[in-house]
């Protein structure tokens, strides 16, 4: 069965290692912070200039000067640092952030990603997404495998304007975990109860299925 948003987030969180610096995009990626495994500590980077993003504030702690990149009120965790936007993106672009997790409209077998612009629709901007995909050591894309019309989002070649090229290395969808390498998707895990055939059918780009594909372990 296809994973829920929460289950996708759980699977994403399994990728983090103890001591990882992680930037989480808006949506499913943000949920991943709730499912970091026991014994693993991550520090969240928020690109508006906060390393060590904490929980949301209590009513009494709310402070207009303390927000995250989604413009939500937040707190700083113990050991946090706060800095300006140039430093924040130096950190991102310079490859110091271990994991970036973000959503996408489309990806393709060359590791390209389209996530910010649909021609004909009003464009609101790319925010920090282009910097994040250009800079992070590991970029994980989270999204549903197909759109609501059933069209695959894992293409041979993106059709929408790109956010970045040759940058995506891993995709975690409601159906599967896949690596992107050598011009193909490599199926690594299936969602519980989802068959390789279904994944194959819903993947428009070249899919390599090598050996037995295990089911994801989701609590």
């Amino acid at each position: 069965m296809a994973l829920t948003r929460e289950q996708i987030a759980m699977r994403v969180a399994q990728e983090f290692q103890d001591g990882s610096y992680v930037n989480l995009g808006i949506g499913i990626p943000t949920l991943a912070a709730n499912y970091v495994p026991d014994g693993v500590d991550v520090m969240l980077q928020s690109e508006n200039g906060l390393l060590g993003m904490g929980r949301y504030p209590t009513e009494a702690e709310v402070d207009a000067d303390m927000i995250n990149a989604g413009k939500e009120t937040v707190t700083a965790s113990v050991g946090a640092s706060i800095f300006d936007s140039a430093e924040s993106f130096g950190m991102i672009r310079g490859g110091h952030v271990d994991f970036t997790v973000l959503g996408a409209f489309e990806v393709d077998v060359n590791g390209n990603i389209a996530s910010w612009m649909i021609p004909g629709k009003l464009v609101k901007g790319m925010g920090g997404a282009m910097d994040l995909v250009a800079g992070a050591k590991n970029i994980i894309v989270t999204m549903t495998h197909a759109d609501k019309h059933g069209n695959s989002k894992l293409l041979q070649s993106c059709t929408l304007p790109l956010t970045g090229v040759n940058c995506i290395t891993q995709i975690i969808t409601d159906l599967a975990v896949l690596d992107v390498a050598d011009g193909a998707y490599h199926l690594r895990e299936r969602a519980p109860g989802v068959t390789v055939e279904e994944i194959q059918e819903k993947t428009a780009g070249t899919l390599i299925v090598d050996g037995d594909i295990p089911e994801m372990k989701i609590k």
Partner: protein
Amino acid sequence: MSGFDKVVTRYEDAMAGLRDDMTVIAGGFGLCGIPEGLIAQIKTMGTKGLTVVSNNCGVDGFGLGILLEDKQIKKMMSSYVGENALFEKQLLAGELEVELTPQGTLAEKMRAGGAGIPAFFTATGYGTPVGDGKDVRYFDGRPYILEESVTGDFAIVKAWKADRYGNCVYRHTAQNFNPMAATAGKITVVEVEEIVEPGELEPSQIHTPGIYVDRVIKGTFEKRIERKVTSEEGQ
């Protein structure tokens, strides 16, 4: 040290010299750390044809958004311009131009502008519409695009505290684009919550050295919150 006393008390003096068609660089991220009173003064002055360089354009009725009401902005350079119906309307009507710029590139453009770096290479935006028409060069086998720096006739900045010499410190994430903006204005105006005497700020802890700052004014701030999200104690 009267020559270094940058404090002005009237907003007219703070923004004196701003003219139609000038470029204004503004600090702030969303509604966080924005020079509310300086923006209001620009609205009062009615200056038109402005090019505004800022990560966002406020919201309807607050922040830089109020400069849209009388169509004072000709062009925005921003990374994200959602949250603003009037912006959308003027954009669709062709009354407003927007140059979407990746957030990190925008920050770096401001820093470079202030630091005498006319252009730099970045991987950000290569192969995307942002890279269209820009010079591409490979370093260690990877393609990068050339981005030019930005400077403003004015920079408007929000700091927490400044001393009379213009040395500034920022509070929490209200820092954001403000320090870079401060370096990139021909005239840099800082609006602060508190003015202190020189010597009160620890020299090694000053975020913006006074050399970048031309005028300092004490403001009062509404500090509107865009997305208030709370949790229960201990969560």
